[in-house]
């Protein structure tokens, strides 16, 4: 069974009464036994009856039990949609007066449109967590925990630009990073608000050019240390082949996206710094050094979690996507997610991007 609204009230007799009418007798007995089993323990317990998964029961703060049932089939998704547990958002990013470099990844976060362009207002080399209240993220509806929110469908179009795009959650940034001869040590007073905890995957490292970078020769990372998804100190697999830093002559702004910083020996298809073997992500960046000093310019390190990878092979036709049946992904959008886009430009045409995303929770 599903609850259509999670309340903050503690588990009460009235709440049990509301649940009782929606359970079979067997399910109710199983539910009561499970509540007793997790009392006082920080546990999430799956409830299985007669081999059938019913839902999850989680104990919180030793004072209440929270019940929720993730989507188990199409019918449960239909239930949520009929209950208006959904929203659809049309978005656009206007890059129409900017000519990109072909075959580069560009972060569209700062570009104006809908959502608005974000601004680099963080303190230099200081962790800046972002959520959906920060300007620049796509609206995706209310916080729904303990329910899960998913992206289930959408369409996308880039006029004149076949492209592939990530829709991603911009979790943490370190802005205004100069590339100097000394070690840049990050200030991590504020932790990431999502994907940051035991059993969670952490974030990928996406360095971008915030303003024009100039090097005497060529730029490159030398070292980068981070805290991995498990909380241990780790180092990015920086090599001369995969960690070059590119330059670009245009500053990121309301009409100019932020180009990827990585130059992988002249290839720009992979925008992420390689993590240590076995790591799935990072919780934070500790420090980094560069092999070449930049005479000017600033970099921004984005810690992000990809939600979708969408290919749009036509420069004229929009593409429509179904993430429920066609590409069975149903990416989970965590409460507070700061959703943005990054795009691989195929050519130097000045495009504008637009599309829609449909969200459902249950």
């Amino acid at each position: 069974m599903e609850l259509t609204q999670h309340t903050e009230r503690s588990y009460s007799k009235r709440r049990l009464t509301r649940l009782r009418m929606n359970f079979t007798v067997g399910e109710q007995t199983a539910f009561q036994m499970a509540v007793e089993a997790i009392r006082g323990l920080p546990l999430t317990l799956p409830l299985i009856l007669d081999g059938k998964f019913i839902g999850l029961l989680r104990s919180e703060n030793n004072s209440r039990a929270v019940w929720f049932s993730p989507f188990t089939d199409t019918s449960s998704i239909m239930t949520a949609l009929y209950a208006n547990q959904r929203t659809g958002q049309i978005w656009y990013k206007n890059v129409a007066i900017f000519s990109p470099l072909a075959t580069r990844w560009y972060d569209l976060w700062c570009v104006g449109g809908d959502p608005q362009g974000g601004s680099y207002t963080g303190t230099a080399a200081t962790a800046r967590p972002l959520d959906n209240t920060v300007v620049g993220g796509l609206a995706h509806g209310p916080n729904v925990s303990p329910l899960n929110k998913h992206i289930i469908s959408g369409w996308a179009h880039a006029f004149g630009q076949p492209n592939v795009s990530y829709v991603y959650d911009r979790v943490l940034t370190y802005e205004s990073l100069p590339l100097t001869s000394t070690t840049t040590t990050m200030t991590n007073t504020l932790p990431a608000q999502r994907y940051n905890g035991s059993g969670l995957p952490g974030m990928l490292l996406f360095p971008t050019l915030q303003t024009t970078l100039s090097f005497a020769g060529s730029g490159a990372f030398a070292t980068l240390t981070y805290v991995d998804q498990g909380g241990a100190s780790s180092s990015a697999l920086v090599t001369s082949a995969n960690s070059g830093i590119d330059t670009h002559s245009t500053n990121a702004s309301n009409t100019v996206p932020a180009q990827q910083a990585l130059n992988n020996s002249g290839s720009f298809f992979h925008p992420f710094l390689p993590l240590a073997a076995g790591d799935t992500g990072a919780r934070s960046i500790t420090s980094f050094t560069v092999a070449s000093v930049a005479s000017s310019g600033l970099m921004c390190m984005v810690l992000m979690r990809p939600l979708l990878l969408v290919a749009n092979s036509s420069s004229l036709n929009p593409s429509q996507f179904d993430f429920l049946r066609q590409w069975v992904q149903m990416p989970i959008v965590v409460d507070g997610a700061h959703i943005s886009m990054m795009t691989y430009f195929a050519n130097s045409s000045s495009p504008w991007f637009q599309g829609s995303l449909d969200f459902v929770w249950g």
Partner: protein
Amino acid sequence: MRAPALIGLLPKSKYSAVDEARAIRLAAFATMGCKVMLPVYLGRKRLGYVVGDPENKRTLWFAGAANITALRAAIAGGQYTRSAFFKNNSAGGPSTVLWYDLWSEQGDPAPPSSPYGGTASTARALDNTVIGGIQHGPDVSTSYFKQIGLISASVSNIQTLLTIYDRVLQYDGNPYSTSTTTMTNTIPPPRYNTTGDGGMQIMMTVGLTGTGAGPVALAALGYTNDQGSAETVPIQTNQNTVAPNLTAFGTTFGAEIVCPYSGGSSNAVGPFICLSQNDLGVHNVTSLQFSATDGTNKCTLALVRPIAHIVIPNSGVFWETDYIAQIMNFEQVHDKAHISLLCYPGPAGNVYGSVEFVWS
């Protein structure tokens, strides 16, 4: 013992109608006074939904299909209607890189005789009794949930995207003025006027006349969001320009969307005005102001709710999107909805198609 299922019928519940009624009554009691939608289950069978409506001191009941099979059964049982539409762009193509509102374009449905002739800057509501909307069947909301089942469409000269929307509220005759134009909101929106319902989007089009040479930009636009709070749209550099040199609406090609506009070349980048961070939609517009005047030209603000989209990747060929088996969206089509079409890029040729509305 469960009763055997008869061919063509869903299996009978082991619970009686009295049990079901008791479950529904208890669910209604639980949601009384709370604006909560609660599914009612009995023996793993979803009976339907109850939802509290405290403003009207009532609890509502409605059913939706329990699964795809039940939804298909509802369709097979005649709970659907299919409406064809045709928009006649016989005069040839307008700019192909703009969004166009086809509501005022000739065809079927025919547009109102004076589509933008409402009292200036005054909210007027639209429903399915107003000329110009695609018909979608009877009022069913007391018992059923109406949604789009299937869309098929073709555009004769260009690949395009069609958006089907509910046109709820309209403000006509708004001047491009550097003074603040205050909207008159005597009439509330007839739909999407409940706190937290996601509200509507703001669409700005040419109206009785177009725009001049410009440049004109949006300076301020105030609205009430779907949470009931007063907000203003963000004014973004290069993103709030009003497209210049647009033609007044024409019955042969509809109404161009004037803002947002890229400012760099002849292109409108999105159909709707960007709202304040985290706002999903609006309930009304309260004020409007521009950075410069533009003669006697006027614009129209329409508050709309997008319902579905269909991509037409090749011109002159019919394409279909199944909104049950292909794209599971289930945006509700409300009773009295005034259904119309947006088109991007602008239709260089005629637009044909049909929409199937189903209820369960």
